[in-house]
């Protein structure tokens, strides 16, 4: 059976540069072809609207990244004492001050409420989920209230069917529930103290699922960790490290990399010394909002101890 002609002979001989009626007729013929049915011409593809950006609570980060994108996954990573948690608290404070309800999935139960209060996080709008506390049996098919069943459970007859859940698995399940529930302005996952081996073992499908769940919602999904875990699913990827360059204030000096103190001189007794804060440098590694791949750009900011004012 002969296939229908898409181009007439006259049209084939005509030079490129159709008048609009001919172009329209051609597109309609093409779209009627069985093989091309349902395929949208590239010219007609719509641009995905740019996500709404919200403040991260620190001007340097906002300037560097343009803010945190809603409906996207933002990942910040760095070693211990690199300012990850400080950025998280600043972002939570900004979100809760916008009257948004936020959730923090604390994988290693490391959240300090006093630091959060000092960072002006509205604690009544923050849902804190502390993982790793309860080891719940999974795949328990029946809940039998009878004494006999309880004894058999104690004796371990069903022990082989039980699976003990670790904090990371708990965190993934909780995040899933929170994202599906919706209505939260920010869902933050704190993987900072999770061993690298375990963090890398989180399946990529989980991150894809989170990315899909958060898409087209006003929720900011925020992940902090030691290494990048979400890989290609992260719309914004920021690397943090303690800065080793500058000195903050005339009375402070740099200790190693980025730790600023108010030591007047090295001979000052320790009780007269004070940890002033951290000087943090952020490097933008990936930003999907731009058409071309972003260059590696840096920004620096300071964190202050609550007692330093």
């Amino acid at each position, binding site marked *: 059976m002969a296939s229908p002609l898409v181009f007439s002979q006259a049209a084939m001989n005509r030079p490129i540069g159709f008048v609009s009626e001919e172009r329209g007729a051609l597109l309609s013929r093409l779209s009627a072809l069985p093989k091309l049915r349902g395929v949208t011409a590239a010219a007609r593809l719509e641009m995905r609207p740019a996500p709404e950006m919200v*403040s991260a609570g620190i001007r340097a980060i906002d300037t560097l990244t343009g803010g945190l994108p809603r409906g996207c996954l933002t990942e910040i990573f760095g070693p211990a004492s690199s300012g990850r948690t400080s950025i998280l608290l600043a972002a939570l404070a900004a979100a809760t001050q916008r009257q948004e309800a936020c959730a923090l999935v604390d994988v290693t139960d490391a959240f300090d409420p006093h630091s959060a209060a000092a960072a002006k996080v509205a604690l009544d709008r923050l849902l804190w989920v502390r993982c790793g506390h309860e080891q719940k049996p999974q795949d328990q098919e029946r809940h039998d209230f009878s004494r006999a069943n309880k004894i058999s459970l104690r004796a371990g007859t069903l022990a082989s069917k039980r699976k003990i859940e670790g904090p990371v698995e708990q965190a993934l399940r909780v995040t899933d529930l929170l994202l599906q529930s919706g209505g939260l302005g920010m869902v933050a996952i704190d993987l900072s103290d999770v061993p690298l081996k375990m963090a890398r073992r989180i399946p990529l499908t989980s991150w894809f699922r989170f990315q899909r769940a958060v898409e087209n919602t006003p929720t900011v999904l925020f992940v902090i960790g030691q290494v990048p875990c979400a890989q290609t699913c992260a719309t914004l990827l920021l690397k943090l490290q303690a800065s080793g360059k500058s000195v903050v204030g005339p009375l402070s000096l740099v200790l190693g990399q980025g730790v600023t103190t108010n030591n007047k001189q090295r001979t000052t007794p*320790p009780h007269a010394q004070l940890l002033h*804060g951290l000087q943090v440098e952020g490097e933008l590694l990936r930003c999907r909002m731009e058409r071309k791949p972003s260059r590696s750009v840096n920004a620096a900011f300071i964190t202050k101890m609550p007692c330093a004012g």
Partner: protein
Amino acid sequence: MPFACVFVPDFPVEALLRAETELRAQAVVVLEGKAPLQKVFAGNEKARRGGVEVGMTKLQIESCTDFVLRARSPLQEVAAHAALLDCAQSFSPRIEDAGDDAILLDLTGLEPLFGPLPKIARDLARRASELGLEANVAVASNPDTAMLAARGFSGVTVIPAGREAEQLSSLPVAVLFVGAVPSPTLETLDRWGVRNLRGLAALPDVALSERLGQEGIRLQQLARGSISRTLVPVEPPLIFEEAVELEYPLMLLEPLAFLLSRLLEQLCARLGARALATQELRLQLELENGWHAEDDCCASPALDPSDRRIFQRTLRLPVPLLDARIFLKLLQLDLKANPPGAPIAKIYLSAEPVRPRAAQSGLFLPPSPEPEKLELTLARISGIVGEGSVGSLDILDTHHPHGFRMRRFAPAEPKQVEPHSKHISESNSSITALRIFRPPLRATVTLRHGKPSHIVCSKQIQGDILWVAGPWRSSGDWWEQEGWSRDEWDIAVQAESHIALYRLVHDRLNGRWFLEGNYD
């Protein structure tokens, strides 16, 4: 003045069928009395057609396998009667409690609100059906005529004013004596050959009075539909409780959830009929052998053995809700986390009524979770991480470093904000956050000139202390057993490729050193 009567035929059977609707198509017989002297107390229409009569023994009934036998449940009858009152109260504020199975309503002034009288009667029947009771509804110009019509005619009956005698004429005389012990008057009328109300109404007044006295005249006026009286209104209390007595003890969660679903639907229908919602659900399970203290988080060792047979769970909601499916899921999750320790014999479920939530949403309100979804999500999360590990925080008024308390997460309703708020922050700094090690990490510290100079804590955290600040001494609660006294140091330790800052604490009460957290 129109009146309506809602009458539930075979009330003891209907009360049981509310919890077991699948039996509605079968012949159900309700037995009363202690074994082996159980006798038939009531039966539905199918059972009567099968030859069952009130007063038959259980042995006689058991000879036929087609009947479903159930023990009479006073608890379920009380709940069904309360449901009937709620049904009537949802239409009229003036109602009279005319027995367990019948309610009289004053319909005066309701026509502009609910439509004409036939529609009101149909709506009453439908509302009763929603509450699990198949009822006869009759509307008449006086309460007694409405009552007789509801008892005599099935379905919905509307008797126009002035045609009471004509409409009632076909009813048997026995309808006047329903619910009472066999009356000698009924026997007399039977001997006279008076079989229906038409015959009774046609008897001469004086002759009837001479033979049966004032009772005879009253019965004749009832038969003619000409008697009139005022209603005795009652104010039903706002108690919403449903109960089920089980034939056999329940041992699995799935059948319990099935029954709870029924009870919740009935409870929600009753609350809905009164335009109410609930913020607190109480589940009480009567157990067969008593629960065991190690199985129940709410267990109190001071309870006496009779209380040990009662297992209670209370579900408190942040906002008034009226959704049986959400309640069921919450109860399921709660029971999964806290199972009763023994087979269940009786189930009581009650709801604390409150006014429903009135919420006005706005276009520019910041995102906030729906209370219904949030409650379910929180319950599910509690099932994963434990009950005390999810919620929001309250900072306590203390200098203790861990002075905070978890509480239920219930974010306040957001207020109107500007649609285009700034997305660039004005501040270029943030608070240095502390990450707490829970539990704190024990450390071995070497002192030099009274200050820490070397630390060994774990493989990752050990070595010379590069910088130290402190100590900062604090203490508190010395007047209690949980007193504390400590010295805090901020230290910098070389990690693999960077310097990490920690808070080192020396417990002055037991002399131990530990790392409390990490500045990040």
